[in-house]
């Protein structure tokens, strides 16, 4: 089984400041990792994913994340946030198994609030 921990339930930050949203995971098998964003009253939108290759992955809206296998982390970063980045961010994993679909296990989410 897999689990995902997002330690920060809320992160306030001023516009144009950098931000890091933390994600740690636990799994007995290799996993693939994802960050999703949810704007108010909307579904989830994929920001970025790590499947293999370079451990630094770039996503939409200027976000990037770094996979650290030894620390079992996949922290999300943005060098300069905008007011429109205010949303809830979810880290998720799915096991690297063939067949059976790719159900996601989510963290509890981090509410990013960008202030002027």
């Amino acid at each position, binding site marked *: 089984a897999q689990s995902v921990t997002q330690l920060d339930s809320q992160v306030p930050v001023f516009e144009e400041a950098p931000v890091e949203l933390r994600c740690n995971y636990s799994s007995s098998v290799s996993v*693939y990792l*994802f960050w*999703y964003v949810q704007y108010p*009253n*909307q*579904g*989830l*939108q*994929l920001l970025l*994913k790590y*499947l293999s290759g370079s451990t630094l992955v770039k996503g939409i809206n200027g976000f990037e994340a770094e996979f650290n296998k030894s620390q079992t982390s996949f922290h999300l970063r943005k060098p300069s946030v905008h007011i429109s980045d205010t949303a809830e961010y*979810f880290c*998720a994993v*799915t096991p690297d198994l*063939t*067949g*059976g*679909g*790719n*159900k*996601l*296990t*989510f*963290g*509890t*989410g981090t509410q990013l609030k960008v202030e002027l």
Partner: protein
Amino acid sequence: GAGVSQSPSNKVTEKGKDVELRCDPISGHTALYWYRQSLGQGLEFLIYFQGNSAPDKSGLPSDRFSAERTGGSVSTLTIQRTQQEDSAVYLCASSPTGDSYEQYFGPGTRLTVT
């Protein structure tokens, strides 16, 4: 193109009633997932369809919950004898195949059980 759609967007029902929630996946997507988002439990997987069959139902919380998919397209999640703890947002996602890692989410159905 059209994304994943879900209906109704909001549903208020009385405790003990049955409800049906509908999901229309992206055309051509063979994999379909249902998740539930609630204050107490966060985002949880419910069931996975590949075509019309459901090889993974491990997330359904009780036998009051069932789901079906017809024609490899539309899916219906049915909750019988609703309880207050069923109140949540029910999210549907589709994926091109069961091996695909990109899931496209619908806007969800907010269910309130009074």
